[in-house]
């Protein structure tokens, strides 16, 4: 018995170590690869001993912020997804499937058109508003109790469709469409340190609070009665976790647009690797989400080389088949 526990613990550390290594390799690759290749030594030199060379400029002002942003957004979205799966006790929950992303997008598109000279600082708050709108529907469902997994997924899909068709309508009736369209797919192309600065506080705070409250969230998964019996204030935890989701997903969407599927698939992978305890799932989801998005962003440069494709397309191409797999497996998805 102790042997098994020890083995599990070992496994956990191995997984942790491997993921951290993967993330670091990914970040370096991310900085090095692109339309102008930069060698490994040059990357190191640009980071630790910056000079006036062209490589340093590319790395410092273009590549590095983008890599950091990819990792941050991946971590935020994945953690948001894990939180949502915990509060709804539904393995299909994610910011995208439940219209949180779509709500934030709609709010931002409307804001773009009404106030064209909006600063990117204030779009974050608008995104929060929209994300809250989408998240509210989830909350209403989660508190209802008896809804089945599939019904929840279909309902979320319908809300998502509604919000995105409104977004489309707003764009059709307005002429300055193309910029917004690119943003709508979800892309971190051409972002710089200012965007990192906008996202970092929200992301950091959200992740920290999520990790801090992970024990209560684990208990939530046991079911409402059990959690209440264990002395948890279920309603408050749900509400609090909902706020965290809005913070994490909303800020990510405000910066990079609605990047889909990260929040859906990463918590599943994390659960496979480290078991069903949210005290472990949450940090691992964040880590794996960062890895996923960093590599997806590297891939996005090659799909239509030499042009960049939005990273949202890559995550959809990876994520949707995974969703299919989940749907087919059906074992975890009770009707």
């Amino acid at each position, binding site marked *: 018995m102790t042997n098994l526990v020890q083995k599990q613990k070992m496994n956990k550390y191995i997984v942790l170590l491997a993921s951290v290594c993967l993330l670091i390799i990914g970040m370096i690759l991310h900085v090095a690869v692109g339309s102008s290749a930069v060698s490994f030594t040059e990357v190191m030199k640009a980071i630790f001993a910056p000079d006036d060379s062209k490589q340093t400029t590319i790395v410092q002002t273009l590549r590095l912020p983008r890599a950091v942003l990819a990792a941050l957004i991946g971590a935020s979205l994945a953690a948001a997804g894990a939180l949502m799966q915990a509060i709804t006790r539904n393995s299909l929950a994610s910011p995208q499937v439940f219209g949180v992303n779509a709500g934030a997008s709609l709010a931002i598109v409307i804001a773009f058109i009404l106030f064209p000279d909006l600063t990117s600082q204030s779009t974050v708050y608008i995104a929060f508003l929209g994300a809250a709108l989408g998240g509210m529907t989830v909350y209403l469902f989660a508190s209802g109790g008896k809804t089945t997994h599939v019904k929840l997924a279909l309902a979320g899909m319908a809300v998502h469709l509604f919000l995105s068709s409104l977004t489309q309508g707003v764009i059709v009736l307005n002429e300055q*469409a193309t910029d917004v*369209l690119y943003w709508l797919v979800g892309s971190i192309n051409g972002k710089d340190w200012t965007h990192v600065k906008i996202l970092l506080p929200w992301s950091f705070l959200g992740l920290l609070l999520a990790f801090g409250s992970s024990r209560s969230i684990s208990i939530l998964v046991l079911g409402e009665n059990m959690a209440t019996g264990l002395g948890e204030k279920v309603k408050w935890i749900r509400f609090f976790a909902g706020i965290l989701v809005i913070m994490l997903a909303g800020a990510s969407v405000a910066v990079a647009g609605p990047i889909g599927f990260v929040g859906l698939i990463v918590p599943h992978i994390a659960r496979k690797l480290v078991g069903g305890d949210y005290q472990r799932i949450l940090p691992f989801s964040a880590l794996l989400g960062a890895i996923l998005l960093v590599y997806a962003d590297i891939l996005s440069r090659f799909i239509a080389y030499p042009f960049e494709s939005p990273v949202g397309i890559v995550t959809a191409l990876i994520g949707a088949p995974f*969703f299919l797999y989940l749907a*087919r497996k059906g074992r975890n998805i009770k009707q």
Partner: protein
Amino acid sequence: MKRKHSYQMLSILFLCLIITIVISLGVGAVYISPGEIFQQIIGSSPGSSFILTNYRIPRTLIAIVVGAALAVAGAILQGILKNPLASPDVIGVTKGAGLFAVFILIVCPTASMLLLPLSAFLGAAAIAVILMVFSYSQGAKPHTLALVGVALGAICQAGIQYFMIKFPDDVNTTLLWLTGSLWGRGWSELWMLIPCVALVPFIIIFASKLDILNLGDEIAVGLGERTKYVRYTLLSMAVILTGLSVAVVGSIGFIGLIAPHIGRRLVGSRSKFLLPVSAAVGALFLLIADSLGRGVMPPVEIPAGIVTAVIGAPYFLYLLRREQKK
């Protein structure tokens, strides 16, 4: 529900439909009064006949057929998936049609007008086939079908976005098509919808099977139905209806989702009455949406798809809440 009540409901809906048709024919950049429309129909020819025969009449007919087709498709899907939230748009069939159509719109914009509906139809069919293949091993269980549909929809969505980003010049036509609009549709598009009408007798024959499926798989098998086969036949019918509709007007949402709900409230869930009533409600819904889009601020037209979303979504949310309380 009483049979008599159902027939009454149908005739009331029919009456509403006629009134809406007259309004729809009259509304637009050029207003035509009901009197003129009546004169036009009985044969004497005032000045507005050109607008009526070439634009308004085919457009109105298309709205009726498409609205009815989408509503019936939605009712069938909700029946076979045993889920009141299913509809062609939610399970990805509409998105599949959209992907193929966008491909044609962008890659060969000079292609003949006939290619667009054909490819849209192919897209819907392709999604349906994949849907069937993926769900086959599980015996076409409702929840697998639904989830696979959602995932396929997401893949198609990514494809559509890829095309739009790759070819930003054609974005406006594409977007307009994706939102769904009846603008500029005429007689030639109406003829493409003939298969929908031709499908009606088959749907009537199969309608009763829907009721049997509703009893649950065990009972249906006990009654001698091959459930898988019945489900796939009904699914194909829904796909044909959706594919053709999307081909002609673009991806108009929420009709297939909402019309069957209204139908169920009016006459209950027996397919014999539910399907025709849903069809009437769907036709009415699209006709009203189109007239509103045309009439609110002429000469600018709001795409019908936006109007259906704006009307449909709040109603849908209300439905969700009610469902929740049960």
